[in-house]
């Protein structure tokens, strides 16, 4: 009943034997031991568990770990080089775009994919891009500001 899978997780191949019913979010946290990906609602609504599968932002609570076999997965741990911060993380810090931080990893993975495709977004585009991630602390204003600031810096980089 179990399956052997191999996933390119943040550049390292993680091999594991998993039950088909194991959610990708639980694989990341409990089998690969990467706790940056948070699990909120487990029904695809809150966006806290957003990761990138082959570069696209997806809900890891709505995927099975077996489906990631042979694919490339990126989690929030892949963003920052060493001890530094990724420009999006730095912008979040500077604009106070997080308070409790629970939703932040999901936002970061959604935003990183968004800015790759839309390096110079309008505010409306930013708002639409953020619509799939819920934050209950900040009221979003600072997050929108952070995306704009990060976009500006990434364009200049």
């Amino acid at each position, binding site marked *: 009943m179990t399956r052997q899978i191999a996933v390119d997780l943040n550049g390292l191949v993680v091999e594991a034997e998993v039950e088909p019913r194991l959610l990708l979010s639980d694989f990341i946290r409990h089998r690969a031991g990467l706790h940056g990906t948070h699990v909120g609602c487990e*029904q695809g609504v809150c966006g806290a568990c957003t990761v990138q599968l082959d570069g696209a932002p*997806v809900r890891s609570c709505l995927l099975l770990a077996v489906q990631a076999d042979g694919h490339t997965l990126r989690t929030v741990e892949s963003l920052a080089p060493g001890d530094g911060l990724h420009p999006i993380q730095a912008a979040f810090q500077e604009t106070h775009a997080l308070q409790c931080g629970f939703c932040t990893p999901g936002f970061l993975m959604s935003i990183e994919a968004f800015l790759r495709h839309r390096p110079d977004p309008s505010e409306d585009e930013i708002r639409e891009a953020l619509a799939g991630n819920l934050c209950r602390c900040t009221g979003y204003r600072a997050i929108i500001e952070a995306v704009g600031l990060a976009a500006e810096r990434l364009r200049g980089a």
Partner: protein
Amino acid sequence: MKPAAFAYDDPRELGHVLDLLAREGEDVKVLAGGQSLVPLLNFRLARPDRLVDLNRVEELAYLRRDGDVLRIGALARHADLERSEEVAAGWPLLAAAVRFVGHVQIRARGTVCGSVAHADPAAELPVALAALDARFHVRSARGSRTLGAEELFLGFLTTTLEPDELLVEIEVPAPPAGSGSAFVEHARTHGDFALGGAAAVVAGREARLALLAAGPVPLRAREAEEVVATRGSFPEAADAAVAALELTGPDADWRRALLRELALRALERAAA
């Protein structure tokens, strides 16, 4: 909030998928994008014995223009529809409707055929496809058949697909020459389930109108189309569209008013 155990297959070929679906004595579910099915698994509202995952069947992963028609394979994702220049140019109603489906993370995985097979009357694409006279190609180990929207959608979350059948392709004819189209909906917040919606394709007095969240199935408003053809009046057509609806409950009145307004807007914008 974790799925119950199930057997899992991820075949590489369509023939193998159909053989697995034909197995007797098992509750088998097809897994495509999983954006509706996996929440149901997580809640254990669905407890299938076996999942047949389509995601490695490459022959089903296509979205292409073929002469005058658009062909949407079982693994074509919402994001494919959203990004397709051919869809934007030839089927703007689909391009407009898909932007209302969930959020970018949902559209990255969710499939068009999966949304149709799930048959939620509040889903956008089944309504848009109904307005475009789409044809639904179904396969099983026993053979194949092709259905129209009114033959496919049976009731709330229910289609006429047999347990061994797979919706393999949606074929969308080109909209009538010179037609315009519009998709409108009302939701509390963007990406939330819509409380009502309408899709219209209009060319002169030839109109097609379908309604979202107006009953148990994606609803083609034939009476309204008849009114446009005979009287040429969009307000009267909008009246006709909601007159026949069987809406019940304390919110029936405002839902009727909402759907009437959305039907009118869709017709007017499609004609503009």
